[in-house]
């Protein structure tokens, strides 16, 4: 075992002590030196261990290795189950963000119940992200860094099936898809 350098030890200590995932800049503010190389070295060091260093949405944190879940889940409560409406709404926000409530409703075919977005915001997965500059200036919603951390995503590009959905046009609105279909028929 090679002994770790000072910077690596420092980054390791800070990230172990942190209560929230941290950006490289935030770590640097504590450690005082550039942390990119130490972060990569640490991630490599921990790769095969019972604890891993992961990066989610540019924020780094340690977490237990996924294959050990069975040891840890034992006496833990399952986080509150999300309703089907909640799951779908979360997926729509994640794959379409920033997205308005009306757009969510257009996809789901039903009104978004008042509590649905509240639950997602309370969980810290969804946040209001400004307004769309169209008549009525509706609020738009987007996911949070905490969403990426919770679902183990390095970025939104890692969302399951993201590329396929995009390639298949399934993230385009119906009107746009309709135009595409029509053009295809004409060709």
């Amino acid at each position, binding site marked *: 075992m090679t002994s770790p350098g000072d910077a690596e030890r420092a980054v390791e200590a*800070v990230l*172990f*002590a*942190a*209560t929230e995932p941290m950006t490289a800049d935030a770590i640097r503010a*504590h450690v005082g030196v550039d942390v990119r190389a130490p972060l990569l070295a640490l991630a490599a060091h921990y790769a095969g261990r019972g604890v891993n260093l992961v990066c989610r949405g540019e924020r780094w*944190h*340690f*977490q*237990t*290795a*996924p294959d050990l*879940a069975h040891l*840890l*889940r034992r006496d*833990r409560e*399952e*986080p509150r189950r*999300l309703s*089907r*409406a909640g*799951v*779908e709404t*979360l*997926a*729509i926000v*994640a*794959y379409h963000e920033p997205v308005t409530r009306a757009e969510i409703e257009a*996809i*789901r*075919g*039903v009104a978004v119940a008042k509590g649905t977005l509240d639950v997602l915001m309370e969980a810290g997965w969804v946040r209001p992200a400004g307004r769309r500059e169209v008549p009525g200036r509706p609020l738009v919603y987007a996911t949070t860094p905490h969403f990426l*951390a*919770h*679902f*183990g*995503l390095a970025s939104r590009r890692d*969302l*399951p*099936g993201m590329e396929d*959905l995009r390639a*298949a046009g*399934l993230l385009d609105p*119906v009107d746009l*898809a*309709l135009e595409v*279909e*029509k053009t295809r028929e004409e060709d």
Partner: protein
Amino acid sequence: MAATDDRLTLDLDGWEGPLDLLLALARGQKVDLRAISILALVEQYLGFMERARALQLELAADYLVMAAWLAYLKSALLLPRDPAVEPDPDELALRLQLRLERLDAMRDTGARLMARDRLGRDVFARGAPEGLHNVKTAAWQVGFFDLATAYGRVAARTRPVFHVVADRQVMTLEAALERLVALLGVQIHWQRIERFLPDGTDGLRRSALASSFLAALELARQGRVTLRQAEPFAPLYLKAGA
């Protein structure tokens, strides 16, 4: 949601609206949604509604609206195509299919998302982190201009716009200069500065003395008058010329 047409329970509470029900029916066709028969789907939905009605189930308005719309779509699809009819029924059918595909995609990805290794369920952050402490001290930023502006603002806000200036007679420096030059022209000998002052109230005389003294200094600088004073606080004498 593997229910097929035959085994669909008629519990409408289980469906999140007509689109949800349609998607369940469409999945029952067990084909790719892109190859789905909209006509068959319409039949299924309408059949479902019929049975619900026969059981005298209370049907929510949006289900009935969808049923009416689908009945219209069905007849339009079955009739020979009339190009004058707008909107084109094929386009309506395609639109419905696209909506189903999109809802299906989101339902599918939602499930995949939920099945990931989730922090706090499958993977865990450190249970007892020491925590990081930022001790912040505020370095307050405010400039002199801000301060002056703020006072101006307060003063402008709270002071009356009209204010009365006490009636006070003053002699300006200009007036004193003019008077001194004129009087020196006719005086040849040394004269005390008080001799040059105009008559008037005490207030005016004090102001005139101050102004005349300044005027005298200015004239002395220009070499047009000579000043003489024996000692501090002694009478001040003026004479024309250097």
